[in-house]
């Protein structure tokens, strides 16, 4: 059976057009990075390949691709539409944005980008979503005295493994705090940046969940994960990072998931009107 890439392309194009409008309205410019770039240890995901004894990565993760480039501007607000290969020939179409540098404080930057995500999802008629917010530093501060087990502790947190945490040789107080953090979810946070984001947004879709830390190693502190109960995987994620000493925040959304969810939402709307 022949593949139907054309119909799929129309579906993605329709959704991308709606999202592009939201980015342009907020002053973001679209960028086009090369499909293939010389291998660098900073690039994440993508498909590694060799040509004439030179190593390359095809369609890497876009934020890591940006960070492997020199950025001359003091402030950049950019967005992209790209297929990212997940270490093999399998890819995921992503649409995402990065806010690099500039004057805003951390909480304002994060809050504005979360607001942008909400605007995008609403434009796609998706209202039943949540944005979880977590902090990598909250965990790092907790285990700051134990670098020897850092990797195992973070692996246990990422997989939410209560058993692995129980097995680690940690002071009782630290272990209890790790287990408590994994069980904590709601609208309250000790972290001043998260608290400021929550208070300024007053949005019940934003939930504090410190277990939200599975993202890339370039993330510095605050990370987010976007999901809906109508889809079995996260529909997006993002986080704070530092580039050339500048504060940055970026996020990526799963374009195919959004296209499917948006179409389902349209179908439901039509059924209700009939």
């Amino acid at each position, binding site marked *: 059976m022949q593949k139907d890439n054309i119909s799929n392309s129309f579906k993605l194009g329709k959704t991308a057009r709606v999202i592009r409008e939201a980015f342009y309205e907020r002053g973001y410019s679209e960028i086009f990075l090369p499909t293939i770039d010389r291998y660098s240890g900073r690039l994440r995901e993508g498909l590694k390949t060799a040509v004439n004894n030179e190593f390359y990565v095809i369609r890497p993760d876009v934020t890591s691709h940006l960070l492997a480039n020199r950025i001359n501007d003091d402030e950049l607000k950019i967005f992209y539409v790209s297929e990212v290969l997940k270490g093999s020939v399998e890819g995921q179409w992503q649409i995402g944005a990065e806010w690099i540098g500039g004057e805003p404080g951390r909480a304002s930057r994060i809050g504005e980008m979360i607001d942008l995500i909400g605007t995008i999802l609403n434009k796609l008629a998706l209202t039943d979503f949540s944005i979880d917010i977590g902090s990598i530093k909250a965990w790092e501060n907790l285990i700051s005295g134990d670098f020897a087990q850092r990797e195992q502790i973070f692996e246990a947190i990422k997989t*939410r*493994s209560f058993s*692995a945490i129980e097995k680690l040789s940690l002071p009782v107080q630290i272990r209890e705090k790790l287990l408590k953090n994994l069980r904590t*979810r709601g609208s309250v946070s000790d972290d001043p940046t998260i608290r400021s984001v929550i208070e300024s947004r007053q949005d019940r879709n934003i939930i504090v969940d410190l277990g939200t830390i599975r993202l890339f190693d370039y993330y510095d502190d605050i990370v987010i994960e976007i999901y809906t*109960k109508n*889809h079995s995987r996260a529909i997006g994620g993002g986080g704070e990072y530092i580039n050339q000493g500048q504060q940055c925040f970026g996020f990526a959304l799963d374009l195919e998931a959004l296209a499917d969810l948006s179409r389902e939402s349209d179908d439901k709307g039509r059924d209700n009107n009939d």
Partner: protein
Amino acid sequence: MKKAGKMLSRIGVEIKEPAGRELIVKDADYSWIFSRVFDVPVFVENGIDVGITGSDVLSELGSDVFVPLDLPFGHCRLSVITPAEKKVSIDMMTNYRIATKFPNLTKHYFSDMGIKVDVIKLHGSMELAPKIGISDAIVDIVDSGRTIRENGLEEIRKITDVSARLIVNRVSQKTKFDEINDLIDNLMNSFKEG
């Protein structure tokens, strides 16, 4: 399955078993899905809330799921096995052909040791492969070791210990947070009681 049923029964959750060959059975509270152990992580990754599978299968598939609990059953080991009369050390296995249900784990294990091997994926009856000459060795699950002994094979190196795991879909963990945490807490308490 029996051990999983017993474990859940201790915390007041009764698995509704199929009367015939149904693969999905519903009761008042849950839908129970009965599948091959290799399919469980795939189902959970793609939307089933909670599953029970082996740590070997999880490592092989690299599934993107939460793994909150190690369960107190399904203990065995994944090992390198050769015909008893052709027993060699791992270091001597360069260019060996190895049959296994776990190609990714096998490739990683030998690659980490700097030994180049050819890996053949089989779906069952691993013990046959060296007997009929399609492989020099196998990587397979060993429990008591009786099956491999009866087939003239010998376990030469354990790769990893294996046991059952409780796994949870990443989005379900968020959307059914209290329900899933209660399940985990109840199980942990029941393990502590022994």
